[in-house]
């Protein structure tokens, strides 16, 4: 299989895979948004209806889903900033690969702050 030519931004390696991940996470977040507006709209039906549906978000399986959703959002957000820098910063295209590793580093730090707290809320006792 031929190697991707050197020096391209969006073909093979970090440039392309970050682009793929940006699309996949974007679509995931969009479909969750549609569902989320629908479930929130139940506040117009009755307090009981809303509480029943929102209690589904508090189960362990949905708790893991929320962790995945937050991970998708955090990656999409940080990589989005990287895309903006590639577009507007004069040195952006040169450092796009380094910036992806910065994005991944910030992703790990952010998730390290979020996950323990969220998982304790989901799986912790007292509820």
């Amino acid at each position: 299989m031929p190697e991707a030519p050197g020096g391209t931004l969006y073909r093979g390696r970090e440039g392309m895979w970050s682009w793929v991940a940006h699309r996949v996470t974007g679509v995931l977040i969009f479909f969750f948004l549609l569902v989320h507006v629908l479930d929130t709209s139940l506040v117009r039906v009755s307090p009981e209806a809303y509480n029943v549906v929102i209690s589904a978000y508090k189960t362990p399986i949905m708790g893991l889903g929320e962790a995945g959703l937050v991970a998708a959002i955090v990656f999409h957000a940080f990589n989005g900033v990287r895309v903006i820098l590639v577009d507007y910063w004069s040195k952006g295209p040169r450092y796009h690969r380094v910036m992806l590793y910065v994005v991944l580093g910030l992703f790990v730090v952010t998730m390290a702050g979020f996950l323990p707290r969220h998982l304790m809320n989901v799986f912790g006792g007292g509820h």
Partner: protein
Amino acid sequence: MTTTPSAQVIPSPRDPYARRKTTRGNYELYSWVFMRASGVLLIVLIFGHLFVNLMVGEGVHRIDFAFVGGKWTSPFWQVWDLLMLWLAMFHGTNGVRTIINDYASRDLTRGILKTLLYLAFVITVALGTLVIFTFEPCPANADPALLASICFE
């Protein structure tokens, strides 16, 4: 009376060269700029939303009708959520539109998918906006145990 040669319009040699006079406007350029501008705002709006709803207190366990009632009696959170809804729906719909244009090569398939997408956009934005503006945090005849403390002040 005849027109004098000096009245003829002669293009200035400094006229900007245009390969092709554009007839389609700059829609895709504006959409590209919008994705970046709305993206930056959405980072602030969504990170704030996630922090308040998942990190503060007992996180997701705190969310119920009373929690929403407490938030949406404040114009601050009404504006926050309205802005988030509109920006996220435009941003997300435009992103999915781009993806459909990229992968659905048959005209009919592309047309159907984009029609469904725009339908979902209109329904979701209309429903969400209506809910934020017509929400009743203290409905009459509701179980008082399920309502926000603000209903009893």
